């Protein structure tokens, strides 16, 4: 009879492999600064999840509680969206609303990844959950995967956040392949000034319109717009600051712990995970291509006044994809400032991916 049981009595080779993966995620978060706020907690909780042994008290109960009560009930992704709304500036989009369509075009990546997932042998609901990686929006991805295919939540979340961090590496070759140097050098006119009333009406109008057209997207869009209203109203500063700091930070820790709970060896170490990680690349590349190709249509229709590169920012990874566009513009013309123009489809992409997720949930959930 063992007097005092240790982990050495129970640990398996697969669990050791998962602990190594957890350490790798921590390395990427801490030393490579790849989405550190998410990959850090996910990596650490992956270690915790694989140090939980049956029959011995471990952290699994706490993480299961977090997963059952905060993630699978969708509370945490929605509170993160509240914080994102409170941190997002929709002014460039209000000033240039036609770029909503660039945000829509980039969602093509969702459907390309969905079709690829079906070819890879996933069923339709899992394929939709994988496809939403193409929305390049972490909370939306987790919200959708929790609703449609919770068994693949961990690899989907890890793929989404990893590739979001890799946007500066994934996007430039795609943008370069689909634009000419002359096009990348196009300078765009300054955006018009936006009135305070417009900023206040915008989140209310978006909430009502999306609520009427795609009710299944309303939890995401509603929280995003509520957060934004807190920010722009000027009358709810305390709530806005809480949403931007304490609420989103607490929610992010819970999200990391909850997703990490799903990263046990039996759930994560399989062929499906490798397929999902490969499909993540398909999602990001095709989303970027969709945005840039629609940007080319804008370029033609505007008589060459719109730089087609800004379409790439329709991939909603905010603000990385807008920064990529700015960096590429600067490389060809150091005095070309496209950041605010790119921010416009960038924030439209956040709304677009939430709407696409809502459609999936409405049709398949």
């Amino acid at each position, binding site marked *: 009879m063992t007097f005092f049981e240790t982990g050495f009595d129970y640990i398996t080779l697969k669990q050791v492999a998962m602990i190594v993966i957890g350490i790798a995620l921590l390395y990427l978060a801490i030393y490579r600064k790849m989405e550190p706020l998410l990959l850090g907690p996910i990596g650490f909780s992956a270690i915790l999840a694989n140090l939980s042994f049956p029959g011995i008290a471990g952290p699994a109960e706490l993480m299961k509680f977090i997963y059952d009560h905060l993630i699978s009930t969708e509370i945490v992704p929605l509170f993160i969206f509240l914080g994102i709304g409170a941190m997002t500036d929709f002014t460039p989009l209000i000033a240039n*609303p036609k770029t909503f*369509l660039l945000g829509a075009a980039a969602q093509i990546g969702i459907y390309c990844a969905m079709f690829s997932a079906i070819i890879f042998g996933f069923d339709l609901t899992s394929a939709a959950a994988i496809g939403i990686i193409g929305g390049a929006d972490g909370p939306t991805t987790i919200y959708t995967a929790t609703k449609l295919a919770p068994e693949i939540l961990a690899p989907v979340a890890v793929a989404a956040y990893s590739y979001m961090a890799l946007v500066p590496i994934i996007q430039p070759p795609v943008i370069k392949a689909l634009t000419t140097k002359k096009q990348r050098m196009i300078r765009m006119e300054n955006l018009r000034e*936006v009135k305070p009333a417009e900023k206040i*009406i915008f989140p209310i109008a978006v909430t009502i*319109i*999306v609520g009427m057209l795609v009710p299944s997207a309303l939890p995401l869009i509603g929280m995003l717009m509520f957060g934004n209203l807190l920010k722009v109203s000027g009358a709810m500063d305390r709530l806005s600051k809480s949403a931007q700091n304490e609420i989103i930070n607490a929610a992010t820790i819970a999200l990391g712990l909850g997703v990490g709970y799903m990263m046990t060896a039996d759930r994560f170490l399989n062929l499906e995970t490798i397929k999902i990680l490969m499909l993540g690349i398909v999602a990001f590349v095709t989303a970027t291509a969709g945005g840039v190709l629609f940007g080319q249509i804008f370029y033609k229709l505007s008589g060459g006044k719109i730089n087609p590169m800004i379409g790439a920012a329709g991939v909603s990874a905010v603000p990385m994809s807008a920064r990529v566009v700015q960096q590429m513009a600067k490389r060809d013309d150091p005095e070309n400032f496209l950041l605010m123009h790119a921010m416009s489809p960038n924030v*439209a992409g956040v709304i677009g991916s939430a709407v696409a997720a809502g459609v999936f949930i409405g049709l398949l959930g």
Partner: protein
Amino acid sequence: MNAISIFIAGISIVFLTLGILAAVTYLMGRILAAAGKRGKDGEKVAAMVAKLHAEGRI
């Protein structure tokens, strides 16, 4: 429901919704700009009336 119909429904709804949002946002900007202009015109008229009133001409 198959993947093709989900794709067609999905992409159509995304474009339709964001297209409507674009149109509404554009109209909101135009309406508020017009209202702002009318407000400024009104201020100008009020200033002229006040001036004429002060001069005892009305």
